[in-house]
């Protein structure tokens, strides 16, 4: 318990950094997912394949390799990336690969006749998308997207590996410091605490995802929930 009081400033800073990282990544991921996810529903074969290739590529490479590639590779290409930027970029590429699939699946879950009826009423494609299809697709998208957010929060722990001072990194530093000063390793207590904090945050998000699913009803087309 003294740990927590002694290191409170440090711990809260780490938590804030984790949340900041998650929010920034969520923002970029959402923009890319909505854009490319919509484009992937168009009847344009080369474009669809290109997006499909992107999705499969980043879903197949281990996330940690992806982040390391960017962190160690960028300086060799003469690009100067801070650890924060490298993690944000790596996780956004991965997150949006999952997000695109969710948005695409959601848009395709809206029955075709909705498009056709709106078209028959003389609405422009633009209006159909924003007023008819997008709102209905949210029913399928929101629960899955909240699930993705849970994974993003978990994935921010990768920041610790490249030196972003987020929550796991703070835990590591506390363990190192106390081991050096006290001789005894508090690793068990500290990592249990870190696990519990992540558990509380992610459980809340998982609960929200399940609540949305119950509330909005399971959509007809299955969106595959992403796996870490």
């Amino acid at each position, binding site marked *: 318990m003294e740990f927590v009081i002694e290191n409170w400033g440090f711990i809260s800073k780490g938590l804030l950094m984790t949340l900041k990282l998650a929010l920034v990544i969520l923002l970029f991921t959402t923009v890319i997912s909505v854009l490319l996810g919509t484009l992937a529903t168009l009847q344009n074969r080369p474009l669809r394949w290109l997006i499909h290739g992107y999705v499969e*590529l980043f879903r*197949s*490479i*281990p*996330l*940690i*390799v992806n982040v*390391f*590639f960017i962190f*160690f*590779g960028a300086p*060799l*290409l003469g690009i100067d990336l801070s650890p924060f930027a490298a993690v944000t970029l790596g996780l956004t590429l991965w997150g949006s690969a999952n997000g695109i699939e969710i948005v695409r699946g959601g848009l395709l879950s809206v029955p075709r006749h909705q498009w056709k009826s709106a078209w028959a009423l003389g609405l422009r494609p633009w209006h159909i998308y924003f007023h008819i299809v997008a709102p209905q697709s949210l029913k399928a998208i929101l629960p899955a997207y909240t699930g993705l957010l*849970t994974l993003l929060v*978990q*994935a921010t*722990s*990768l920041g*610790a*590996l490249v030196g972003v001072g987020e929550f*796991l990194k703070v*835990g*590591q530093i506390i*363990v190192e410091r106390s081991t050096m000063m006290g001789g005894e*390793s*508090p*690793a*068990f207590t*500290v*990592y*249990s605490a*870190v*696990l519990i904090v*992540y*558990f509380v945050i*992610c*459980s809340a998000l*998982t609960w929200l995802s399940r609540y949305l699913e119950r509330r909005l009803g399971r959509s007809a087309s299955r969106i595959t929930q992403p*796996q*870490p």
Partner: protein
Amino acid sequence: MSFDFDYLLMQWPALLDGLWMTLQVSALSIVLSLLIGVLGAGIRLFKVPVLSQLVALYVELIRNTPILVQLFFIFYGLPAVGMKLSLYWSGVLCLSLWAGAYQIENLRGGLATIDKGLREAGMALNLQSRQFFRLIAIPIAFRISLPAMLNTAISLLKNSAYLQTIGLAELTFVAVDRIATDFRAIEMFAAICVIYLALVAVLALIAGRLEARLQRPFQQ
């Protein structure tokens, strides 16, 4: 800086060693995670008092925490209270526990689709509860949960890359280790990305074949 292909050829044996370790750890963990999955799903299905709640808690705990923190807890946390595991077994334990939680859910999802009518039909044929599970419920549930189970196995293979952080000499570790001395990051990471992509593609192909094979009796 140009892409140095000869360098990769030179490092090829080291990468192969890493790949071998990755495959070994993944294969062992996939088998163990399936055992955990079957056991856990069984406990949940038959609502064994206490144990059932513990399994539910275990699944939630694994799914709602980062695998990296789980790994650190096992590798650094457990020895601090006297449970010392070797590098290799810490890795296997972490991956098996992680994937096991997902396999429990996958199997449960499959069992949940077993229709009540099937149960009644089984009873009408005078099947014992055990016979019903062995002959009807489990084969059907297995076929339905197979795609999800194979997905989890593929995820496990990818997540074996996390073992780099504790120093197990698998594929990613070999690459990062070489980069620390030779600074050939682009070549090395490109190479292991291709290897991982190939592994995942092969596994996905096998998965597809297996699913098609199991669906064959049901095609019209």
